[in-house]
């Protein structure tokens, strides 16, 4: 029964993605509908995850599709912390379409079903959860960077509608993206540390290499910010880092 909860979650995320596009025409009903779509979808997905956890003996999100399911939940959860406030509402324009597509993929891959899972150690579960949470934070940060570049372009081009569409202020997007990166790097570092406990020589693979590249890229971003790499440059580095994040998730499951 619980596995059918993916349908309301998917519908609500999809509705939110469309409604955020409507918010581009101006603040109003579309934005409120989008916000409720995110909330309802996330609650439905939370119930789904609880159902999966209750019915599984081991870690229920060990498959690529299961990881994707958990990953989407973490992204939307992180977005919910401040994204639904009127000031940051339009962030959903970049977050919710991604969330809806990824959840649909997870569903198609069987990651939302109540399936028996192999028993796995608690250390592995903590490692996976921390890594996914870190990557979810970086995804959210990349969404902010994308929104920054879009709004910066509109301001540079003197678009007449620049004040009609309520995008978060540039400076706030820049700072918030950097803070999210800091939080995500902390989670990733702890996650890597936990994973290292199970590490044996010879285990080093492409996914680990790319994960380290992600860590280095974002750490460099934070260092470069102190030297004045803010705004547009920081957003571009952020998106470059996210390109690595997009690679590391499939690598973990298909190339390891």
């Amino acid at each position, binding site marked *: 029964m619980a596995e059918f909860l993916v349908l309301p979650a998917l519908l609500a995320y999809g509705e939110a993605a469309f409604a955020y596009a409507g918010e581009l025409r*101006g603040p109003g009903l579309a934005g409120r509908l989008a916000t409720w779509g995110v909330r309802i979808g996330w609650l439905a997905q939370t119930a789904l995850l609880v159902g999966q956890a209750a019915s599984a003996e081991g870690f229920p999100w060990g498959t690529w599709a299961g990881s994707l399911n958990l990953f989407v939940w973490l992204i939307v959860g992180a977005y919910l912390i401040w994204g639904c406030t009127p000031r940051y509402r339009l962030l959903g324009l970049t977050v919710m379409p991604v969330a809806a597509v990824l959840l649909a993929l997870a569903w198609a891959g069987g990651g939302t079903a109540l399936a028996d899972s192999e028993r796995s150690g608690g250390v592995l579960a903590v490692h996976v959860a921390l890594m996914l949470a870190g990557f979810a934070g970086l995804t959210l940060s990349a969404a902010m960077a994308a929104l920054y570049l879009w709004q910066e372009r509109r301001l540079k081009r*003197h678009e007449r509608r620049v*004040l009609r569409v309520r995008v978060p202020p*540039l*400076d706030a997007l820049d700072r918030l993206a950097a803070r999210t990166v800091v939080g995500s790097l902390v989670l990733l570092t702890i996650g890597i540390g936990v994973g290292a406990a199970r590490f044996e020589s010879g285990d080093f693979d492409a996914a680990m290499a790319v994960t380290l590249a992600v860590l280095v890229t974002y750490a460099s971003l934070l260092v470069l*910010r102190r030297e004045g*790499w803010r705004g547009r440059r920081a957003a571009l580095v952020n998106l470059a880092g996210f390109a690595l994040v997009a690679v590391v998730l499939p690598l973990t499951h298909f190339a390891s």
Partner: protein
Amino acid sequence: MSSLTLVGVSHHRAPIELRERVALDLDACRALARRLAEQLEAEAVVLSTCNRTELYLAHEEASEEEAVAAITELAGDSADDLAVALYRLGDESAALHLFRVAAGLDSLVPGEGEILGQVRNAFEAGAPGPLLDHLFRQALHAGRRVRVETAIGQSPASVPAAAAALAQQVFGELSGRRVLLLGAGKMSEATARNLVSRGAEIAVVANRTIAHGAELARKLGAQALPLDAVAAELEHVDVVVSATGAAGLVVSEGTVADALRARKGRPLLLVDLAVPRDLDPAINELEGCFLYDVDDLRGVVEETLSGRRGEAVNAERVVAEEATRFRDWQAALDIVPTIASLRALAEEIRDSELARAGGRLSERERRNVESVTSQILAKLLHLPTIRMKEAAAAADGVVYADVVRHLFGLGEEERRR
């Protein structure tokens, strides 16, 4: 029953020369309202802004001509022009007009917020009675609702306001943000005041004539500098507003590029309100710099104004709701005397019957009978009262009132006396 009369002129039909003649300050509005109220034994409120002068009267008999005479007196030699521009509205249409005025829907710039305060001041300075008191309170409520429930007043409607809104789009909260003003003219000052009202700090005023700049700097709590000293300030400020009368460029791209190196990536918004322009257009190509000239800002304002006009549809809906509520309230006033008479008659009968039976009842029994009969009356009259109020709102309240008066013989006793 009081009826409502509105007589006035506004920017729709009256040129500024005529509006100037009939314009009144708040004290004069107060004096005229009191005078009309005394002379006509009426309720009176006078609303006068740069766009309109309107007299609102509530009176038992038609008072339109007296109101026209009062405003014609103000027009003096321009009485003929006034006759062409004057509008006269009564009851429902007068109420709807005031609600639209309070909502900013009748303003030159749709949704402008200043009018709500002006309506409040006029109301407080006037001589309202029950009708105008209710009308103006509901108009203020309608104005507030429009501003809360629609986006009509959220976007800037002037070039200085657009400049300040752009600064918020770049920096978010402006508290603690430093502003450099180039030029000390009216445009600089208006933009500076808009930025200050949103929390920004005017750090420096630079002007060709240092004394003139110093005067504005003193008013804004800023430092005054000559124009050739601004290069060093670019490193420390967040917003530059320029409106000098210089014939050529005041700040070059190279000057800003030099300053950017020390800014460590902090964004810089530059607003050039001067014609010819003060700031090199190439500055906009520099990373982290956003340069807007007066044409760019006008484009933004035109777009936001068109948005306001679009939002006006929602605002009109709110105003129409409030106008309906007011009409219902006013209609219910027609039925109130009948309801009061009916209740008084019922109470009178109850009291006389209680008095007749009083001698045969103990004190406790009397209290019980009083309580029971009181409840019976309340329950019996509840539904007819509700139905009569509903009928009043549906415009056949007078018929209902007449029927009730006839059936219960209300007022016959008084007529016999």
